[in-house]
C-alpha cells in the first residue's frame, strides 16, 4: 500500500501585494448611444364593439397557437369584436409594410405576438410600435415574461416606453393548445393582472404622452 504523503502546509506569512493608492485616470470603454426620438402613439377607441382586431403571428415557435387562444377568448367573452389572424409575410426579422397597410385599411387595432426570443421580442416590440406610430393602429404586444427587461429597453430606445404589452409565462414552444389557453385566461406573471384585461386596456386606454 502506498504511503500517503501530506504536503507541508504553506507558510501563512505570504505577502499579498497591497493595492496602489495612487489615483489614475483611465478612458471610458463605452460607445455612443443613438439619440432617442419620442414617438406619438395612436388614438384609442372608447370601445372595441364592432371593431376588427388583427392578431399578428410573428412566426417564431408556436406563436400562432397562442394567438388562436386569444381569438377564442374574444369569441367567448367579447363576441361583438371581430378578430383575424394573419402571419407576417416572412420572418419576424424584417419589417412588413404590406401587412401593416392591410391592417391599417381593414382593421381597427392589433395584437402582435409572441415575443419569446432574444430577437423576436425586440422584433415584436418594434413591429407593434411601427403599427402604433406610423400606421395609427392601437397595438398591444404579447411576450413571455423572460423578456420583460428586453422589451422595456427596446421600447425606451424606440421612443415609446409606454408601448402597451402583456406577458405570458415562458415557454410557449411545445405547449398544447389547452396549456396556452390557460396562459391566455391567466394572469401576467410580471404584473399579476389578468392577461386579457391588460390587452383590452392597452387597446382602449389613452397612453401617457
Amino acid at each position, binding site marked *: 500500500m502506498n504511503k500517503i504523503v501530506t504536503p507541508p502546509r504553506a507558510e501563512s506569512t505570504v505577502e499579498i501585494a497591497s493595492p496602489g493608492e495612487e*489615483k489614475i485616470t483611465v478612458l471610458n470603454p463605452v460607445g*455612443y448611444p443613438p439619440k432617442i426620438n419620442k414617438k406619438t402613439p395612436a388614438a384609442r377607441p372608447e370601445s372595441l364593439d364592432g371593431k376588427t382586431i388583427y392578431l399578428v403571428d410573428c412566426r417564431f415557435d408556436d406563436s400562432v397557437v397562442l394567438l388562436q387562444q386569444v381569438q377564442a377568448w374574444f369569441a367567448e367573452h367579447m363576441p361583438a369584436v371581430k378578430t383575424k389572424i394573419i402571419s407576417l409575410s416572412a420572418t419576424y426579422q424584417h419589417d412588413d409594410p404590406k401587412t401593416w397597410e392591410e391592417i391599417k385599411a381593414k382593421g381597427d387595432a392589433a395584437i402582435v405576438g409572441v415575443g419569446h426570443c432574444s*430577437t423576436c421580442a425586440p422584433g415584436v416590440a418594434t413591429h407593434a410600435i411601427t403599427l402604433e406610430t406610423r400606421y395609427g393602429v392601437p397595438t398591444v404586444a404579447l411576450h413571455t415574461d423572460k423578456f420583460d427587461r428586453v422589451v422595456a429597453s427596446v421600447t425606451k430606445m424606440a421612443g415609446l416606453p409606454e408601448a402597451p404589452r402583456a406577458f405570458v409565462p415562458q415557454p410557449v414552444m411545445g405547449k398544447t393548445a389547452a396549456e396556452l389557453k390557460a396562459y391566455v385566461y391567466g394572469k401576467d406573471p410580471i404584473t399579476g393582472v389578468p392577461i386579457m384585461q391588460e390587452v383590452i386596456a392597452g387597446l382602449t386606454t389613452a397612453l401617457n404622452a
Partner: protein
Amino acid sequence: MTAFERTTPRLVEPDTEENLQRQFLENKWTDGLPIVLPTEKRVAAMLAATSRKPDEIVGRMQPTEFRAAWEYTVEKVAVNAVMAGARPEYFPVILALAASQVTARGSTSSSSSAMVVVNGPIRKEIGMNWGTGAMGPYNHANATIGRAYGLLSQNLQGGSEPGVTFMGSQGNNYTYNNITFAENEERSPWEPLHVQKGLKATDSAVSVFYGCRSTTFCLGLREKYWREHVRDMLAGIDGNSAPCLILDPITARQFIDRGGFDTKAKLIRWLHESAQMPAGRYWDLQLVQNYVYPWATFGKEPMATWLKAKDDEFINHFPEGEINVVVVGGETNGYWRIMGAKYRKTVSVDQWR
C-alpha cells in the same frame, strides 16, 4: 437617419487601480476576468499603431436586429483593445474586426459565438499561430485579438447584460476569445480563405463567422466509408446554420487523395451534394420552422423549391454558397471538425494600418 449623442464621457473618474478594476467589473464592461486598465498612455500607444485619427467613426453595432445600434470611434476601439491585453501591433486587426460591424456579443437565446480567421502577411508580422494549438489559448496575438473583439462588441454596442442585452440561455464558452486563429496558408493545399472572398494573397484580412453551436468531429478519412462518414457529420449541423469545415492540413490533403478535390470549390460542391435530408424531416426542425420556412412561403429561393418536395424526397439543404473550408492545425494528427457557422464578412486589415 439615426443621430448619435456624444453623451458617453471620455474619461472615468480617477481612482485607485483596485477600485477601477472593481468599477469596470460592476459596470459590466469586462468579460468577468481582470483587464488591463486603459490609461491615456496605453491608449495613446495603441492609437500610434494606426494611421487613422482617434475621432474617426469606425462603425455601428447592435446586439441583435431591432435593437438600437451604437456608434464608435477609433479611440473607443483602442480603449477596448488595451483592456484585452492586446499589443499595439495587433491594433489594425482589431480595428478591422470592429469595422466588420458584426457583433461578437449577439443577444441570441441560442448562445452563438463568433469565429475569426486571419489571413495574409499580418499573421507572420504579429506572430499569430496557425499550427499546433492554434484554436487554443497558447498564442498571445490569437488570445488577445479574440478577447478584444468580444470586449469591444459588448461595450460599443451598448452592453451585453444577461436579461437585458444578452439572452443566451446556456451561454457559449467560445465567446471568451471568439475562436480567433490564423489560417495555415503554408501547409494548405488550397487557396486561402480571403482569396476565395475576393482579396489578393498578399492582402491581410479578417473573416468573421457566426454561430459555432453545433460541431461534429472526426479523424481522417477512411478508404471504404469516408463519404458516408462525412454525410453523417453534415447531418449533425443545425439546419439554420451552415457547415464550415476546419481541416488539419493532413485531412485537407486526404480530401484530395480520396475525392480528387484539388480546389476548395470542388470540395464545397461535393459537400453541398452530399448533405441531404428528407424534406418532411427537414421542415419539422424547429429552427427551420422559425427561420427558413417563412422565407420559403415568401417565395425566396432555393427554399421555395424545397417546399415543393414530397416528405420522403431528399433535398440538399445547405446552399453551396454558404459552405466554407478553412485549414488550420499543426499536423500532429488528422483530426478535423465541422462547425455550424455562417460566414458574415471579410474586412481588409491593410486599410486600418
